[in-house]
């Protein structure tokens, strides 16, 4: 689960990480009163969406598609500028490198006190899968695209790993400060920040904390000017507050609905819907559709505990996608029995008035019974014995061959 910058900064404050004063707003009027109450002449007006690259992104009118303003994060030097920027941002579509061309509508704004910047750094905490621990990454080159830094000058990124049980070793944090060239109170600030963040990472079950930029102010303070925080969904049961921080408008409604039914669904751009049991097999089914010249419309794993009801929901979700011109069902029965899937598929097809071609491939538990159920029904359904055969058939059928 991702949260907004303003929410991340609330958590940072609680954890003892230095941030600038700021106020979350949803309207231009709010933004103006936030400016008045912050009392600093210079403020940052920041679009809040769940994607990076906001500063370099562009705002468009969602209806006309016209460019409204360049840059989703603006520095305002007056009350008038706050008004201009806020009205250019709220309700507009922000397109950044990470949102893709469809962009995201900005519903939230953050007005933050300005900050004198001596230098910008990059800092992130994330899971290192190979090292099986939390890694802290930092670089002197902040405020830029870190993936480019990693690609072109990997030696500019410094890494330390926390111990799975003992957490951060202060000596490692001090070394990191040295590598970033920090001295005096700036070094102390960074060491204390790393210690606070690594504790927060564990206590809140974070998946990632990214601060880009982390800045050293003119007075030498280390301040988190950005906050990109995400959490491990598997741990949400022990953090009831996560629900309050969830912004449903930032999430794909259909993916949430799928999740509620025990399904794992990701929409893609193709025309062949797929319904599969198992994540690996679901990906492989997409890949094989592509190999035979088709384009998958979705990833859909019905999971090991699928029922008639969840399969009907899955069918409904696939058919909601207007691009879908055919469906491939690929089931390797383990716990799931193919005949149960067959009956569910027939029921769902009848209920939803299936109009596109359907190919079903069964293997494993009760595949013979499953095929018999399909062979004896009124539905126009094609069967296949291997994934390749199924993919080839559905690709041909969608082409009218």
């Amino acid at each position, binding site marked *: 689960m991702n949260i907004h910058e303003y929410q991340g900064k609330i958590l940072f404050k609680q954890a003892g990480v230095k941030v600038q004063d700021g106020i979350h707003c949803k309207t231009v009027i709010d933004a103006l009163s936030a400016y008045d109450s912050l009392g600093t002449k210079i403020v940052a007006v920041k679009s809040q969406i769940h994607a990076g690259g906001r500063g370099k992104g562009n705002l468009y009118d969602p209806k006309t598609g016209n460019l409204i303003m360049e840059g989703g994060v603006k520095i305002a030097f007056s009350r008038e500028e706050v008004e201009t920027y806020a009205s250019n941002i709220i309700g507009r579509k922000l397109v950044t490198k990470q949102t893709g061309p469809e962009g995201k509508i900005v519903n939230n704004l953050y007005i933050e006190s300005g900050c004198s910047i001596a230098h910008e750094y990059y800092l992130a905490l994330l*899971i290192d899968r190979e090292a*099986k621990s939390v890694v802290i990454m930092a670089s002197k080159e902040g405020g830029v695209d870190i993936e480019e830094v990693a690609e072109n000058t990997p030696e500019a990124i410094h890494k330390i790993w926390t111990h799975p049980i003992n957490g951060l070793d202060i000596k490692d944090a001090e070394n990191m400060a040295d590598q970033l060239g920090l001295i005096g109170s700036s070094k102390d600030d960074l060491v204390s920040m790393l210690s606070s963040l690594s504790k927060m990472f564990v206590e809140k079950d974070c998946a990632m904390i990214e601060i880009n930029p982390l800045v050293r102010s003119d007075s030498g303070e280390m301040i988190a000017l950005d906050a990109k925080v995400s959490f491990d969904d598997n741990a949400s049961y022990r953090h009831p507050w996560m629900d309050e921080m969830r912004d449903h408008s930032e999430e794909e409604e259909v993916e949430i609905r799928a999740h509620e039914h025990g399904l794992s669904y990701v929409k893609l751009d193709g025309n062949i819907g797929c319904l599969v049991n198992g994540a690996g*097999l679901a*990906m492989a089914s997409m890949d*094989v559709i592509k190999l035979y010249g088709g384009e998958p419309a979705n990833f859909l794993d019905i999971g090991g505990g699928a029922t008639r009801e969840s399969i009907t929901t899955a069918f409904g979700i696939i058919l909601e996608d207007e691009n879908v011109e055919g469906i491939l069902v690929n089931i390797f029965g383990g716990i799931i029995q193919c005949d149960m899937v067959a009956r569910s598929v027939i029921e769902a097809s009848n209920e939803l008035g299936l109009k596109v071609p359907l190919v079903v491939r069964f293997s*494993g538990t009760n595949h013979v019974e499953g095929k018999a159920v399909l062979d004896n029904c009124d539905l126009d359904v094609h069967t296949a014995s291997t994934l390749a055969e199924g993919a080839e058939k559905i690709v041909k059928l969608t082409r009218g061959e």
Partner: protein
Amino acid sequence: MSIWIHEESKVLIQGITGKQGTFHGTMMDEYQTNVVGGVTPGKGGQIVELPNKNVPVFNSVSEGLEATNADVSVIYVPAKFAAAAIIEAADAFEQNGGGLIVCITEGIPILDMIRAVARVDGYQNVRLIGPNCPGIITPGENGGCKVGIMPGFIHAKGRIGIVSKSGTLTYEAVAQTMSVDEGQSTCVGIGGDPVNGTGFIDCLAAFEADPQTEAIVMIGEIGGSAEEEAAEWASKNMSKPIVGFVAGSTAPPGKRMGHAGAIISGGKGTAQEKFAAFEAAGIYVARDPSEIGNVLVKALKDAGLR
């Protein structure tokens, strides 16, 4: 032989009185797995009826090991309690000369897994397979040793070792070996979580050392770099032929594809990179899982094994 489990392995079931534990305990027993008991805290002294025998329930893994001398423990407890169950089993096995832990549970918080894996890695004779995996199976002449949720009947004893991140895709690989009249020595599902116990390299090394295994099928998926590392390791250390497939060539970047670990992040962990690493390491590549059988036959023929 086989790797890590064999027909005589004695298996404990953590969570045996739960719905999943009882159901899969029954299926394991039907496959002739030597289930010797189960563990559910607070239910020690109860008996669970399996098709072939009744087995005792213990309050803790160490009690269970003392009474049964089990060498394998399989975990079917809910995600909230699974990491603690792994740690309990690891500590108990360490006291008892070692053992294999197989964790089937999906959805364990990643930081819990980091702590659990660190504990297991501190013990030389304790191995963890999973979590979020179908388990491990060594088919025998009549049934065999099935520690997990895979359908037993699709397997047959043979000479192909299988290692995979995915569940149903492993079954697909098994079916592919069967379609070319080859059976399996051992099939290991290492799971789709970003932080897990046993990895590809552990499995490849064990298959290389196992006289029954003559060739290996390795199934990867997008995310992380375990496939690349395994390929590089294999190019230096494996004499037996390997057939590889990677799921997720069509997966979009930045989207989690079902498994917690199946995500292309920062442009890294793509199927293209993994296939390229396989090819560079001399691994026989199948681009379509339905081709694994044919590619395997070619690999065996090239090695003079068929």
